[in-house]
């Protein structure tokens, strides 16, 4: 047998290489820079520089592309505008999250030393020595890089690799909370077991599809399915398993169970990143799989999309109504949003490809902003210092009086989640639903609108609580409002973005409309 060495278009991968390379460099920094304070500065600077540079390269590539894109490694990956748009979104989320990671409100989001047991002597010693965990920066870079890879890969096995590249760092990040470490550990363990379980399901699906079609390339699967004589149970089972793997990452019912637990237990900065970026990356990959690979199976699979979308919207909304923990409430709201995202998949390809990036951008910005606000409202520790986050809803009563800007931003994010006009969320929902209507899925849209109406209730409830309810006597002393510069920057930037995208969406919508064609090319 003779092999031809594949030619790899490295330039097309430049944005991803920059991010992953910076992650690797970050590991070296971890090993060679001794002083914790310096190390933090170096890591933060390195991460931000890498993300900004990558974003710059993406903009340059966007400008250079004229409609088509680059097929890398014989069809293993496709860098087209759609992929670039998703990568840019992920980089924006990464940048904002990185600022949250670096924030030192209440001593920072992360534990001093992940290896120590909570409450142990080692933990106290590490705290006294002023240790500061900085592995989170390279971990986050790997996650961002993996997600970017996830959006452009067009080979199912390579997709599995990318899936693990971004999942593994996330499992670790979830475990590294500074406070409530037991919860953090529990969340990480659950997230990990379920994540590994779902990726095994995904991989077995890939094997089945490979068996049925002899290929794993997303573009070629589509062609191969058309050539198959009749529906092959192997193919259908494999397709379902693959899609289930993505739906797990998006957090759709019944594959959502990790979402509330992981969101609640993880350090809030990580929750923000995870909530925004994981959903976006998984949606991007699902777009290619649904609209390219399994497009010929549309009829068979639409049942799955409809059922899961309805289940997610209804279940997420209904359970969010009864939550008392703010992070958990937002997590269930994320489950409902997974349903709204799937609604767009029931629509026509062109519209959906414009709607989905916008929806995820709007949702992600509001998510990062909302969790950033959560990280600012703290309990007062017994020694008078700043303690863990005040996540019980009741603790937020009267926040509007104490910190109008914070509460106002939160209200804006909540309104955006609810899809109230003049916020980005409204435009996102509008675009997603009109894509579905164009695809004839109006019953689904009807349910989606009803679910939005019910969902608006628990968002507004929190707004009412913040602005129109007085804090109980003496409760004010037990709550401390942090004023971290980095976090505040993130909050105001996301709030402004949510507002601008709600009022002036046409520029961004036109960009995504430019990106709404998937490059389908059958590689050799």
């Amino acid at each position, binding site marked *: 047998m003779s092999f031809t060495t594949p030619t790899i278009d490295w330039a097309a991968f430049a944005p991803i290489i920059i991010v992953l390379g910076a992650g690797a460099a970050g590991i070296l920094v971890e090993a060679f820079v001794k002083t914790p304070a310096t190390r933090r500065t170096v890591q933060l600077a390195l991460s931000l520089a890498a993300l900004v540079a990558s974003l710059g390269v993406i903009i340059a590539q966007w400008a250079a592309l004229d409609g088509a894109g680059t097929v890398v490694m014989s069809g293993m990956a496709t860098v087209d505008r759609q992929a670039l748009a998703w990568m840019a979104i992920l980089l924006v989320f990464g940048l904002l999250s990185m600022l949250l990671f670096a924030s030192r409100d209440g001593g920072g989001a992360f534990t001093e030393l992940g290896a120590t047991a909570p409450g142990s002597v080692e933990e106290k010693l590490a705290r006294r020595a002023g240790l500061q965990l900085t592995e989170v920066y390279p971990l986050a870079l790997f996650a961002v890089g993996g997600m970017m890879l996830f959006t452009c890969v067009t080979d199912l096995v390579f997709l599995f690799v990318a899936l693990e590249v971004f999942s593994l760092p996330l*499992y*670790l990040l979830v475990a590294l909370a500074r406070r409530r470490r037991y919860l953090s*550990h529990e969340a*990480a*363990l659950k997230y*990990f077991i379920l994540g590994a379980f779902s990726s*095994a399901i995904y991989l077995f699906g890939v094997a*089945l599809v490979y068996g049925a079609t002899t290929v794993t390339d997303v573009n070629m699967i589509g062609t191969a399915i058309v050539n198959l004589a009749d529906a092959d149970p192997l193919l259908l089972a494999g397709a379902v398993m693959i899609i289930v793997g993505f739906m797990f990452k998006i957090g759709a019912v019944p594959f959502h169970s990790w979402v509330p637990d992981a969101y609640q237990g993880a350090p809030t900065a990580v929750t923000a990143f995870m909530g925004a970026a994981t959903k976006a990356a998984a949606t991007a990959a699902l777009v290619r799989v649904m609209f390219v690979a399994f497009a010929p199976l549309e009829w068979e699979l639409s049942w799955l999309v409809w059922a899961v979308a309805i289940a997610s919207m209804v279940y997420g909304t209904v359970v969010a109504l009864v939550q008392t923990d703010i992070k958990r409430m937002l997590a269930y709201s994320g489950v409902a949003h997974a349903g709204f995202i799937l609604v767009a998949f029931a629509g026509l390809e062109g519209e959906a490809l414009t709607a989905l990036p916008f929806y995820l951008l709007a949702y992600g910005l509001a998510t990062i902003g909302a969790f950033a606000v959560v990280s600012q409202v703290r309990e007062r520790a017994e020694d008078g210092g700043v303690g863990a986050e005040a996540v019980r809803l009741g603790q937020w009563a009267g926040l509007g009086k104490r910190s109008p800007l914070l509460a106002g931003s939160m209200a804006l994010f909540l309104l955006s989640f609810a899809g109230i006009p003049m916020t980005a969320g409204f435009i996102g929902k509008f675009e997603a639903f009109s894509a579905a209507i164009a695809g004839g899925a109006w019953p689904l849209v009807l349910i989606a609108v009803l679910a939005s109406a019910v969902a608006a209730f628990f968002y507004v409830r929190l707004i009412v609580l913040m602005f129109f309810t007085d804090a109980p006597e003496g409760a004010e002393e037990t709550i401390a409002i942090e004023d971290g510069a980095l976090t505040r920057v993130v909050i105001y930037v996301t709030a402004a973005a949510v507002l601008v995208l709600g009022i002036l969406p046409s520029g961004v919508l036109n960009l995504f409309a430019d990106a709404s064609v998937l490059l389908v090319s059958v590689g050799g």
Partner: protein
Amino acid sequence: MNPMNYVILAAILFSIGAAAVLLRRNAIVAFMGVELMLNAANLALVAFSRIHGELDGQIMAFFVMVVAAAEVVVGLAIIIAVFRARQTISLDEPAELKG
């Protein structure tokens, strides 16, 4: 021997692995179940590769092994951290996050 039998074996192994995750309380054993599922997929890939008479599936299996190894590292790290904190690796014990 008909290579399709290997595919059936892979399906059986996959089911055993899934059952281990569902049924075993011990985190390590549950994790081994997940690994078994991954390896079942590997077996299926190799078997299909044989059926189709090409090498792609076998090469994929190597990728999967590498990824699985990385997953073990991360998974064991988390399990050990949990063990240090709680002195147990029962999957049922930490259940404060619910509802």
